[in-house]
């Protein structure tokens, strides 16, 4: 049985819902020796900023229970380099590209949006990163002032008709409230969640195990939190959602689909299993075949709330 995995978000049609979370799939072909990126529904890039960013000092990462902390700090070579050296690769690859952007001001968000608006042959959507925990200006602390979030998304909307997703996290405040407001400012959908700030202490030095006190927690450890927010946003707002947060196997992916996720962004799992994306894709298909679901859309959002479950379910 052939399963139809086609995923539609407004005017964007993808062959399947599997993508990669920003910053977890390299800048171009780092994983191409392990996995065929052409099989992905879409690729979300590492966050691009207007100016090059060196990122944070080492150590930037440490492993924690079922996950990891990172404080990379949006290291990237900037907009110009991305256009000159990375865009041609993605153009040739032909996989729908979602560019993650972050600015230090509304003007920068606008500039990034305007630039990519002119590249619609390659760039199919933008993910507006409003929730990086590891940078000062433009990061999660900065964006706690809601007017800054709204100014940033407004600047993006003013400059482009591209599909735009606001990437938010509970670190910013009330997710539902913020999601509602950015949709009100013209965002097409929400991407959630980003990493959650956490810390880890080295007993010998009595200091952080990474070079900053806090880092962003990712991996299976945050999956239940991500799942809950994806569910709530889908239920309350009925807008397109890119889900990320610890999706590591087909079981996780299916849970997110059932609560309504449109796209599934595989993140930290790529670091452990370079073929995680395609293994998950295969697992989703296998499940659909077993459950006789011909069209993935029939599974999406089929969650039965606890209150409506009624009798016959022993949990």
């Amino acid at each position: 049985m052939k399963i139809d995995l086609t995923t539609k978000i407004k005017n964007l049609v993808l062959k399947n819902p599997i993508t990669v979370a920003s910053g977890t799939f390299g800048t171009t072909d780092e994983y191409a020796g392990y996995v065929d990126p052409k099989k992905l529904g879409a690729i979300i890039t590492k966050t691009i900023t207007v100016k090059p960013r060196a990122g944070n000092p080492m150590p930037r990462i440490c492993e924690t229970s079922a996950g990891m902390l990172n404080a990379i700090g949006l290291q990237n070579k900037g907009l110009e380099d991305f256009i000159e050296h990375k865009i041609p690769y993605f153009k040739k690859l032909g996989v729908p590209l979602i560019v993650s952007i972050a600015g230090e001001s509304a003007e920068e968000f606008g500039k990034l949006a305007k630039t990519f608006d002119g590249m619609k042959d390659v760039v199919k959507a933008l993910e507006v990163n409003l929730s990086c925990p590891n940078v000062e200006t433009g990061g999660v602390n900065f964006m706690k002032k809601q007017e800054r979030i709204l100014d940033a998304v407004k600047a993006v909307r003013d400059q482009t008709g591209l599909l735009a997703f606001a990437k938010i996290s509970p670190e910013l405040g009330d997710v539902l409230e913020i999601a509602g407001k950015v949709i009100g400012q013209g965002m097409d959908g929400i991407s959630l969640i980003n990493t959650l700030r956490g810390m880890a202490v080295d007993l010998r030095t009595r200091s952080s195990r990474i070079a900053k006190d806090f880092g962003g927690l990712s991996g299976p450890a945050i999956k239940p939190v991500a799942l809950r927010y994806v569910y709530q946003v889908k239920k309350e707002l009925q807008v397109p959602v890119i889900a990320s947060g610890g999706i590591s196997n087909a079981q996780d992916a299916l849970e997110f689909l059932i609560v309504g996720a449109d796209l599934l962004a595989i993140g930290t799992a790529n670091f452990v299993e370079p073929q995680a994306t395609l293994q998950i894709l295969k697992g989703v298909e296998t499940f659909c075949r077993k459950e006789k679901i011909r069209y993935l859309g029939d599974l999406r959002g089929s969650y039965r709330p606890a209150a409506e479950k009624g009798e016959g379910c022993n949990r």
Partner: protein
Amino acid sequence: MTEKKYDEDVSLLENKKVNEKYFKLAFRSKSLSQNIKPGQFLQVRVNQGQDPFLRRPFSYFRVSPGKVEILYEVLGRGTRILSGKKKGDVLRVMGPLGNSFTGKLGKKKRILVAGGVGVPPLVFLAGKYPTEYLLIGTKSKAELMPKSELKKVRAKVLCSTEDGSYGTKGRVTLLLEKILKGRHPGEFFIQTCGPKPMMESVITIAAKYGIEGEASWDESMACGVGACLGCMVKTKDGLKRACADGPVFKFKDLKL
């Protein structure tokens, strides 16, 4: 073109403690054994669950047709779990990763300076290419690599221990200085792998004598393929990824 990489399930041939410090693990893999060079590493998934979560990077120790060996220290949870694996257990390994040490040096004589987890890859290098000296530094005799593991090495092997229980007492860099004193610097090339303070002083000594060399410089890694930007190294040409642009860097390129 992207270099061919392998990510495969391998069956353990052996996994045993060889002394106070090291465990030796061997597995069969035709593809890996044919393609790996000294200085490169592999990423091992120590179990199938989600905790510990990340893979662990290990340097190759030795390869023979169809077989790969790694020598490792139990340093934390991941390596402790690994040390409990038995013959026949299956592990997921990917590689070969990273760049490698320069093999052919022309007329220059190779001096290898090794410490701690940096010993195995340099033993691999010394077994494969002509080497004048292999200098090994440890805390004490109990941590030295067993002589039986050095059979293939034709170099002069000199050891130092910090407590003086074997070889020269003191740091391994003492041995290096002794060799270099009064010699013509142009005749040597140094390659080093070990704790950062050791490599830093090797690089300082090399600079003093005007000798070129390479260091295997790593940082905590997650992906091992250059994707996560977790393991950056400061070089004169900006930040480089230890896992993908390194781990081997020229002394003159490193910005300490």
